[in-house]
């Protein structure tokens, strides 16, 4: 008899979060071994298109819980929307990402159902014929413990982000996608989120940064750093660099990347004057896109980069800053022209939607 594994999906800016896909992959491992079915729950507003992605990663059934009151997180709202669906699904396990929001609403649900809930899991399995097993970190990830429950115990597991990674998608043969609109009364939600603020690139921790401009020895000194800072500001990136740059005082000590510093996973890494010593490269392995600028054509990082540029960064960076400004203005201009605001003062009217969009 196949059991149901419920996976609760989380979205961010209209995309499934990576930890969510890790949870699906983890559930898929259990499902493939035991013949269980994965039932993914996707709460939110206008999130239906993401159901396909959950299906591609292995969900046998996706229930989209769509309601405009779920556009912003509310633990009361999440409970009101998800509890009935979870109750009906009768899952053997509930798996979700270990996130700030999950620790609010899923913890409340576990109290309500007197259900064990394990946070910070590094692995979730079902052993023998139905004993839930979890490995979890405690004490700042310095202690690892294995927990096994009685057979058939329904338990919630929150998978620590980044513990398993996402392999290639393993879709099931057929996925059933349903969209339900729950009856929700947003005025009864006692906790509400008004808005989400993006991280401030200049203060965000490097490990959290989405875009990083990296400085190496080739930057040459504080003047080079201030040029890179301009570039970083323009791109909304955070400034980081190699140990050499930090040791020379061009960077704060908590801003260097590598084996003895931060391990970063940005979407974009722009390396200036960094040759690519192993110790530094070990810290940037998780970057999605790497652009490297260096005068030395034999530097290892040039070969690893998605775009390697052989040239002097001192000549390139000022030009780059100017050209980026131009490119961004060009991109902003047609947007302003196309906004349907037939007012007399085009300049100020264009400012309003722009300013309003920015949280």
């Amino acid at each position, binding site marked *: 008899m196949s059991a149901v594994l419920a996976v609760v999906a989380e979205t961010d800016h209209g995309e499934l979060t990576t930890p969510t896909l890790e949870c699906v992959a983890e559930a898929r491992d259990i499902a493939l071994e035991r013949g269980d079915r994965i039932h993914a729950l996707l709460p939110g507003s206008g999130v239906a298109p993401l159901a396909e992605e959950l299906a591609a990663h292995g969900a046998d059934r996706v229930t989209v819980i769509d309601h405009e009151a779920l556009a*912003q997180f509310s633990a009361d709202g999440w409970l009101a929307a998800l509890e009935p669906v979870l109750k009906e699904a009768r899952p053997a396990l509930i798996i979700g990402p270990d996130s*700030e929001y999950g*620790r*609010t609403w899923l*913890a*409340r649900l576990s*109290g*309500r159902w*007197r259900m*064990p809930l394990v*946070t910070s899991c590094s692995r979730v399995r079902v052993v023998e014929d139905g004993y839930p097993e979890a490995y979890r970190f405690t004490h700042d990830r*310095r202690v*690892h*413990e*294995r*927990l*096994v429950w009685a057979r058939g*115990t329904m338990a919630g597991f929150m998978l620590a*982000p*980044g513990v*398993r990674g*996402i392999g290639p998608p393993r879709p099931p043969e057929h996925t059933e996608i349903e969209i339900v609109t729950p009856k929700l009364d947003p005025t009864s939600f*006692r*906790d*509400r*989120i008004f808005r*989400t603020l*993006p*991280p401030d690139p200049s203060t965000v921790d490097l490990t*959290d940064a*989405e*875009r990083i401009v990296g400085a190496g020895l080739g930057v040459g000194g504080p003047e080079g750093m201030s040029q890179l800072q301009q570039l970083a500001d*323009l*791109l*909304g990136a955070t400034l980081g660099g190699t140990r050499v740059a930090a040791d020379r005082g061009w960077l704060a000590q908590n801003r260097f990347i590598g084996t003895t510093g931060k391990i970063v996973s940005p979407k974009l890494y722009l390396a200036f004057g960094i040759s690519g010593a192993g110790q530094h*490269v*070990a810290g*940037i392995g*998780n970057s999605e*896109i*790497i*652009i490297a*600028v260096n005068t030395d*054509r034999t530097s290892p990082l*040039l*070969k*690893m*980069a*998605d*775009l*390697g*540029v052989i*040239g002097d960064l001192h000549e390139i960076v000022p*030009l*780059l800053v100017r*050209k*980026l400004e131009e*490119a*961004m203005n060009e*991109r902003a201009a047609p947007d302003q022209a196309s906004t349907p605001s037939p007012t007399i003062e085009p300049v100020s009217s264009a400012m309003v939607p722009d300013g309003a969009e920015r949280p």
Partner: protein
Amino acid sequence: MRIAVCLSRLPDPKTVEVDPITGEIDASRTLYVLNPADAAALEIALELRAPGDRVTALTVGSEAADSVLRDALAVGADDVLRVWEEDRATTRPLVTSLLLATALRTEGLPDLVVCGARTLAGGSGKVPALIAENLGWPAVTDVLELSLHAARVHFQRRLGRGGRSEGEVTLPAVLAVQADAARLRYATLPGIMRAERAAIPVRHLPDLGLSPLDLNFPSPTFRTPMPPYARPREVFIPDSHLPPHERAAQITSAGIAKRSGKVVEGAPEELADAIVAFLAEQGFLDRSA
């Protein structure tokens, strides 16, 4: 207004020595401290206290946990209360939160409960939400800033990857604050002297109207310490069609597969153009514009 603060006494992570083979903690070397997030919670409660308000500090634990309550008295908490059940030396979140919620109920419900967002030790961070659920209240965790507006609390909470969100919650509610939300004030000498002499009231299960059976939550059958090794991640697998030396080179590049990148060369002007074009192509110019 009545504000309750839940405090916990925890192993100082700097003194937690883990055996690398068995993964067990050497208890004889562990020192205990007040959870830093709870200290922040206490400070916030004291800051919110208006004349006539009362701040009550609670903890679950044995006599040793009196120390955190004395710390709270020393910095100015009005009342303290320790909850304990001798027979069950357990501090599991479901039990802790039930004991705390019941104690709050029997002592007279406060308007606001402030907790630390995440204990250093277990790090489960569930207790605040579980207290809220026991009381039938809303909960907000990972709070960085909060301000009181009549029967509402405006808050800013932390999200992953450096983001934050702003919202509000209606009172009564449970708020769990992050360790860096506030810095606990220093105790005055008279405060410390007073706290040392104070009697700490204790409530046991019968005082709370609970029976040991009420604490029977499903618990793990096995609980085994493991060596603290990270789990292997799914990473890049080299193409098996490549010659061995190239596969080896790919594996040793610390997870960076040889990317199908291109290398450009030329005048600075052209190079800058190439970078801008590449960034535009990858969609990096749209969002930050």
